[in-house]
C-alpha cells in the first residue's frame, strides 16, 4: 500500500518537475511547481511527518507560489520564444553539475544499501508537532533565532526599498496643470485628512506634502 502511494506521488513529483522545466509559458511552469510541492507534501505524509507536510503546503504552495503566480499574471509574461542559447560557456558547467548530481545520488543509494543499520519498523514520532517544537526551541534554538533575524531583515529591507523616493510611488503622477486634491488621495499615511492640497506637478505635490526626501528631485522616478 505504502509502496503504491510512494510510486504514485513520486511519479507525480518527477512528472511535474519535468513539466516545470520543459514548459515555455511561465504560468504553466509555476503551476507545475505547485504540483511538485503538493506531491512532496503527500510523500511527507506517507513518511509519518504530517506537520512538515502541512507546512509545506501552507508556506510553499499556499503563500510563496501565490506571489509568484501573482507577479506572472501582473506582468502578463507572454510565451517565451525559442531563442538560441546565449551563454554557451554555461553548457559544459551544466553537464558537469549534472554528472556530480548523478554521482551523489548513486553514492547515497549505494551507501544506504550497504549500511549495516536496518530500519526498526516502528513508527517514529520525529515528524510530530510536539517533537519538532521541542527540537526547535532547545537543540536548534540558535539556528532558529538566526533564521528569524534573517527574515526580519528581509522584511525591513523590503519596506526600505518600497519607501524609497518619498511616499508617492514612482508610478503615481500628478497630471501637469493646476489641480487640487484631498490630502488623503496623495498621502497613504493620512487616511482621513481631507485638507485641500494644490499642485501642478508630482514634485510640487510631494514638496507640499512634505514627503519629498530628496530636494533635488528623483532621477529614477
Amino acid at each position, binding site marked *: *500500500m505504502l509502496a503504491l502511494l510512494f510510486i504514485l506521488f513520486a511519479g507525480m513529483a518527477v512528472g511535474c518537475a519535468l513539466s516545470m522545466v520543459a514548459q515555455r509559458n511561465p*504560468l*504553466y511552469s509555476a*503551476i507545475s511547481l*505547485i504540483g511538485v510541492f*503538493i506531491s512532496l*507534501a503527500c510523500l511527507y505524509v506517507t513518511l509519518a511527518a*504530517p*506537520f512538515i*507536510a*502541512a*507546512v509545506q*503546503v*501552507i508556506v510553499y*504552495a*499556499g*503563500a510563496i*507560489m*501565490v*506571489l509568484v*503566480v*501573482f507577479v506572472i*499574471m*501582473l506582468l502578463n509574461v507572454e510565451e517565451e520564444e525559442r531563442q538560441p542559447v546565449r551563454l554557451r560557456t554555461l553548457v559544459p558547467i551544466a553537464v558537469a553539475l549534472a554528472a556530480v548530481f548523478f554521482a551523489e545520488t548513486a553514492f547515497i543509494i549505494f551507501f544506504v544499501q550497504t549500511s549495516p543499520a536496518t530500519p526498526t519498523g516502528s513508527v517514529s514520532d520525529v515528524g*510530530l*508537532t510536539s517533537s519538532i517544537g521541542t527540537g526547535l526551541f532547545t537543540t536548534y534554538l540558535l539556528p532558529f533565532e538566526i533564521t528569524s533575524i534573517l527574515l526580519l531583515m528581509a522584511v525591513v529591507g523590503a519596506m526600505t526599498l518600497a519607501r524609497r523616493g518619498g511616499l508617492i510611488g514612482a508610478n503615481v503622477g500628478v497630471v501637469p496643470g493646476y489641480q487640487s486634491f484631498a490630502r488623503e488621495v496623495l498621502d497613504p499615511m493620512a*487616511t482621513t485628512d481631507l485638507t485641500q492640497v494644490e499642485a501642478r506637478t508630482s514634485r510640487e505635490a510631494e514638496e507640499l506634502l512634505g514627503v519629498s526626501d530628496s530636494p533635488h528631485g528623483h532621477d529614477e522616478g
Partner: protein
Amino acid sequence: MEDLKHLVLLMVGILVAFTVVMTMVAYTVLAERRILGFIQGRLGPNRVGPGGFLQPIADLLKFIFKEDIVPDKSTRFIYFLAPTIVTTAALMSIIVYPFGPDVHLPFTLPLIGGNTIPLVIAKFDVGLLYVLGVTSVGVYGIALAGWSSNNKYSLMGGLRSSAQMISYELALGLGLIGVILQSGTLNLQSIVEQQSGHLGITGWNLIWVQPVGFIVYLIAAIAETNRVPFDLPEAETELVAGFHTEYSAMKFALFFLAEYVNMFTVSMLATTLFLGGWNGPFVHQVPWLGIFYFLGKVVFFLFFYIWLRGTLPRFRFDQLMSFGWKFLVPLAIINIVVTATVQWSGVFDWGAKFLKTSTGWGG
C-alpha cells in the same frame, strides 16, 4: 485486507459527509434567497415545491442544461482547471471535522466488528494545519480563473481576490494561534473534547478565553470566503461579476458551489474551535445529540453570513487592506502575546480552579 477494509470505511465516511454537506449547501442557497427576500421586504423564490423547497433541484437542472460558453481567446487548459481547483480545495477539508462523538448503533456492523462508529472521517494529528493548507490552495483557482478568461474585469477580480486572500489568511491564522496555545494541540478532536465543561456549554473557548481570537477569525473568515462586506473580487457594480464573469453553466456552478462550501467549512471550523464543536447539554448521555448540536451551530454561522449580506455595504479596496493589515493583524498579535503570557503564568488555571470550586462551573 485490513488496509482494504479501512479504505472502504473511509470511502463510506466521505460519501456520507459529502452528501450531508452538499444537501445543506444547496439549502443554504435557498435559505439565503428567502432570508434576503425577507430582509428586503419581498418574497424570494416560493414557487417550486411547497415554500420553494425544490428550488435547489430546479437550479441544478438549469445549471446542467445551460449552454457552456468558452471565450475564444481564453487559455483553455487553465480555464478548465480553475473551477476544479476551487471546488476540490473547498471540499477537501470536510474530512477532518469531528461531526460528533463516538455513537453507538443498535445493531452490530460486520465491517467494523462492533456497533461504535466515530463521527469523524480522518483522525489527523495536524487537522487544523491541514484545513489551513487545503484552503490556502483555493486561491489559485480564483486567480487563475481571472487570468485565463482573457477579460480585464475577470483579471481585476482575480488580482483583488489574491491580494485579499493572502492578506486575510495571515490574520486568520494568527487569530487561531490563541486557541492552539490554549489547548496545546492541533488535533481538532482533542480541541473539541477539551471544551466539554459544565453542561457542554461553559467550556467553550469563545466564552472563557478567546473572544478576541474569535472576532479576528470571524472577520478574516468572511474576507477569505469573499462574502459581503468583503466581496470585492466579484463586486458586480464595478467588475460585472469579477473572476467568474466569463464562466457559464456547470463551470459557473462549481464556483458558486465552492463559495458556499467554503462558507460551510469556515463555519465548521469556527464551531469546532470556538463554540465547543459537538458539545452541548446531555451529549454524554445521548451521543447522537452531538451531530445536531454541531450542525445547529454551523447553521447559526451560515445565518450570520446571510444576515451580514442583507445588512452591510461593501468595503472600498484601500479600506479593506488597511483594515486587514493595520487593525486585524496587530489585534491578533496582541491576542497571542496576552494568551501566551496568561498561559505561561498560570493565572488562567488558577482562575478556572477557583471558579470550579466556588461555583461548580468551568472546564
